[in-house]
């Protein structure tokens, strides 16, 4: 296994949950400018693998390196390069869409002037001043996606990025994913649906029984 200088490397990851082995000695590399799909049936450990890659969950064995450096040791440098779109949306239910995104913009050190355009593209303009508790599941997903889209991060970890989205939303996400990767970014997406990017490097990991 070569230590790739620019990208994410997972080396011999093993994780057990109770009596189930979710993955054993799993090694892979994601190079700059490529997409990795983590696929598998429900409960096969896709989300858990994403959490391991983000550093939230510690694997039993193995390690993860970002640009050749262990992510445990360089948490802050890794955090600045990471946008995590989790299974929970990470939105405050009591705050409006705009307030939620303005807070995220502050964390990314941005002024937040791109928020209206982003809301427009995601078809959220009408609910910009609505508290997120009143949004539909799809609208909440879109708001959480807006946060990823405005982050300066190079690595996107996406948990079911197109679930709950309508056709237009799905196309927009895939379009942005393409431009992110074309710009030298990396993306890892856990999904049970098929995402195909035209003309971009793409690989796949299958979790579950057929591993």
């Amino acid at each position: 296994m070569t230590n790739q200088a620019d990208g994410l490397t997972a080396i011999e990851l093993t994780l057990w949950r109770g009596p189930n082995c979710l993955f054993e000695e799993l090694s892979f590399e994601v190079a700059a400018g490529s997409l990795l799909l983590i696929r598998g049936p429900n409960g096969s450990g896709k989300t858990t693998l994403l959490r391991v890659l983000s550093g939230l969950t510690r694997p039993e064995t193995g390690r993860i390196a970002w640009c050749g450096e262990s992510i445990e040791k360089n948490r802050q440098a890794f955090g600045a390069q990471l946008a995590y779109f989790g299974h929970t949306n990470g939105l405050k239910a009591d705050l409006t869409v705009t307030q939620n995104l303005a807070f995220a913009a502050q964390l990314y050190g941005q002024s937040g002037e791109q928020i209206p355009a982003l809301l427009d593209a995601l078809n959220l303009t009408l609910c910009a001043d609505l508290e997120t508790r009143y949004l539909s599941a799809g609208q909440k997903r879109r708001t959480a996606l807006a946060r990823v889209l405005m982050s300066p991060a190079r690595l996107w970890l996406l948990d079911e990025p197109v679930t709950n989205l309508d056709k237009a939303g799905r196309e927009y996400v895939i379009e942005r994913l393409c431009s992110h990767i074309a710009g030298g970014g990396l993306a890892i997406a856990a999904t049970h649906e098929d995402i195909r990017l035209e003309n971009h490097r793409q690989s796949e990991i299958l979790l579950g029984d057929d591993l």
Partner: protein
Amino acid sequence: MNLSRFFIAIVRQELQVAFKRWGDLASPLMFFVLVASLFPLALSPKHEVLRNLGPAVLWIAALLATLLSLNALFRTDIEDGTMEQLVLSPYPLPLAILGKTVAHWLLNGLPLVVLAPVLAVTYYLPEDGVRALSLTLLLGTPTLSLLGAAGAALTAGVRQTGGLLALLVLPLMLPVLMFGARATDLAGAGEQITGPLYLLGALLLLSLSLLPLASAAAIRISLD
């Protein structure tokens, strides 16, 4: 963004969220006011009885009100996923936890400091006693918030906390209660209270320097 701006952003967001939930905010304070104002009605109306019991009752009511407000401290953050985002952000997690704790104190501790002197009137506390009560609460309640945050972080991953949180943090809160109530009592009797005040200050500094680190580690474990 530098660290102080990050800290301010966290405190601001916490306050924004809390002001949308008046009910949650008011109930510990209501509890404090009710307990503190019912005691004089149930006790003997003699001035010296009330004056003797006042400091202890006010301090115990403040401690229990703080405990009541702790359960929800990190729970919603973990449930809605905002805590994950903070853990993964490039900023130090202890600073985020400290921001949330400071917001908790501003919303729960500070109102106690303001309300206590008003309620102290019903216990006929002398002027020195009232001043000591405010001072000790001002020094003590931040320590209670910090200790409570550590306990809330430890129990955040547990499904049904019940009395676990209280059981965990109450013993740690006892020194604050003892020094606080005793100093108020002594001041009322015209004694010097520099000693207990210094000790309360020392406890606050110790908690301020160590507990955010412990809470952050506990949050990481809760999310794992």
